[in-house]
């Protein structure tokens, strides 16, 4: 187990380091460098050279890379050549917003998907099961930004219950916070719930075929009792795996949702930086997102070994 843990942590570190090299090199692909890009094509060579000296862009690439990496490891993401402001506060503020949205969305998605998926499995040959399966199939095909727009049409423009855009931190009043959180979270969660429902359904179906469930029923438990007492824990293993992987997808999905609802999260900052040709900021935000994705994969792998004794022993 300890050996597996160390191996898996090492793998995480190596992959993250390799990803950072890729992100860094991608930003160097452009003809000219970040200073040229930031100043635009009309900038005089003197102005570009000045900016290069100010931010150390005239140094060799490996030096710049190591500077960037060691800065990030100590929590310093550098200075934007476009806004001339430090990048760290931008990331620190926006990451909270994005994480709140993503985690809340996953919670809501699971609250919808676990009961629905279980129902779809238990009633698989009846109308209810078929209806849930069909609905989840359609839900998977709906892009989250379309779900967002439809929710705005219904709950903001139609019923006038919730604001159609904006953000409020929890300290600005919990009611205000929840009102602004509701629609973005629902938009992300509904589509996610559709995906998870299918996995819950097939996981429960799988469990229902197991011998231990038949034994439980032979002891006199009803189908539902047997499922709740013995089945759900076993069905949870594949669902947790998928939910963890889907968290990474939602992190990126939130980029678009934040744009729809004008929410100051990482996605909005990323899109703004791309539009401003602010490559250093793009580089920093992308790296944070990539590390989050890798971290989620790591957590899923470790959870998997905790949940499933067979894997634990094998590892």
């Amino acid at each position, binding site marked *: 187990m300890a050996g597996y843990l160390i191996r898996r942590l090492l*793998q995480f570190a190596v*992959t993250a380091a390799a990803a950072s090299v890729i992100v860094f090199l991608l*930003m160097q692909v452009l003809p000219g460098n970040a200073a040229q890009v930031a100043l635009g094509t009309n900038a005089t060579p003197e102005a570009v050279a000045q900016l290069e000296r100010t931010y150390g862009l005239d140094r060799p690439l490996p030096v710049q890379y190591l500077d960037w990496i060691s800065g990030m490891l100590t929590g310093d993401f550098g200075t934007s050549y476009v806004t001339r402001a430090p990048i760290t506060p931008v990331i620190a503020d926006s990451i909270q917003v994005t994480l709140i949205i993503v985690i809340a969305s996953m919670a809501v998605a699971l609250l919808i998907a676990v009961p629905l998926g279980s129902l779809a499995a238990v009633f698989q040959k009846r109308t209810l099961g078929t209806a849930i399966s069909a609905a989840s199939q359609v839900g998977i095909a709906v892009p989250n930004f379309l779900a967002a*727009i439809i929710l705005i049409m219904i709950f903001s423009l139609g019923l006038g219950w919730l604001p159609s855009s904006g953000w409020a931190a929890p300290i600005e009043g919990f009611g205000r916070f929840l009102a602004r959180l509701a629609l973005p979270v629902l938009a992300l969660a509904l589509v996610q719930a559709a995906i998870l429902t299918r996995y819950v359904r097939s996981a429960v*179906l799988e469990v229902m075929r197991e011998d231990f469930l038949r034994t439980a029923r032979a002891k006199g438990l009803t189908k539902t009792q047997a499922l709740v007492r013995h089945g759900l824990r076993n069905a949870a293993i594949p669902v947790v795996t998928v939910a963890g992987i889907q968290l990474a997808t939602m992190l990126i*999905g939130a980029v678009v949702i934040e744009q729809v609802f004008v929410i100051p999260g990482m996605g909005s900052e990323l899109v703004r930086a791309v539009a401003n040709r602010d490559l250093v900021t*793009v580089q920093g935000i992308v790296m944070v997102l990539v590390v989050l994705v890798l971290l989620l994969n790591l957590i899923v792998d470790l959870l998997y070994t905790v949940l499933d004794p067979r894997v634990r022993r094998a590892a």
Partner: protein
Amino acid sequence: MTTRLVASRRRADASLVIGIVLIGIVIGMALVSYLWTPYNPTQAMPADRLQGMSADHIFGTDRYGRDTFTWIMYGARITLLVGVVSVAIAALIGVPLGVLAGMTPYGWLSGLIMRGNDLLLAFPALLLAIVFSAVFGPGTGPAMVALGIASIPGFARVARSGTLQVMSTEYIMAARAANRRIGPIAVFHVLPNIAGMIIVQASVAFALAILAEAGLSFLGLGTQPPTPSWGRMLQESQQYLSSHPMLALWPGLFIAAAVLGFNLLGDGLRDRFDPKLKGRD
């Protein structure tokens, strides 16, 4: 055949038929748009701006008076183009790598390929596409390449696991005993046997590419004006949500229909190709 098998077959066929019909509609619209559209897509008619559905404009018009149905037809082209190119890139790179990794499961090459795969998985499709638009400028080209690269791991994994299965069969052992080289074995024995799985994966990847391109264009970082794209139409409709909701619903409906079509096709084909899934759901 048991009744259960028949039922599952029927469900698979229903998925296939609905999927093929939906995809057929999208392909049909794209093809017809090369011969005929109700209006010229770039022709603005200020007098006709923001009209509802009518005999003249069956889907209405946008803020410049351009015909929405014409734009939907042109948008189908971009949707299919992005799907075809990105899936082709992913399959052409991912499948050979996966087969190679599956045929030499204990070699360093296999390890290298699978670690590279893990590395690519750290870059979700939409994120890679945003990075590409930052570096190479926004456009359909960079988007297709980015989505293609991001889809490589899916193909490599499927090809590898399929190859591992095929390699353990007796006829491969026979071929190896007959001293056939690895190349011919891959081409004549492995590829035909994993083709079904690859086609299923292509269908799923196609759906994901459509979703990602729509998201990217919605952010303004994908297909650029004046080229019509569904994601961009949806974005531009956002300021008219209260007065003209149909402007958002038409492109939304077609994005969802296209994605649903490829997902259903993938599901239907999977049930057809994978004998282990027969009789199950």
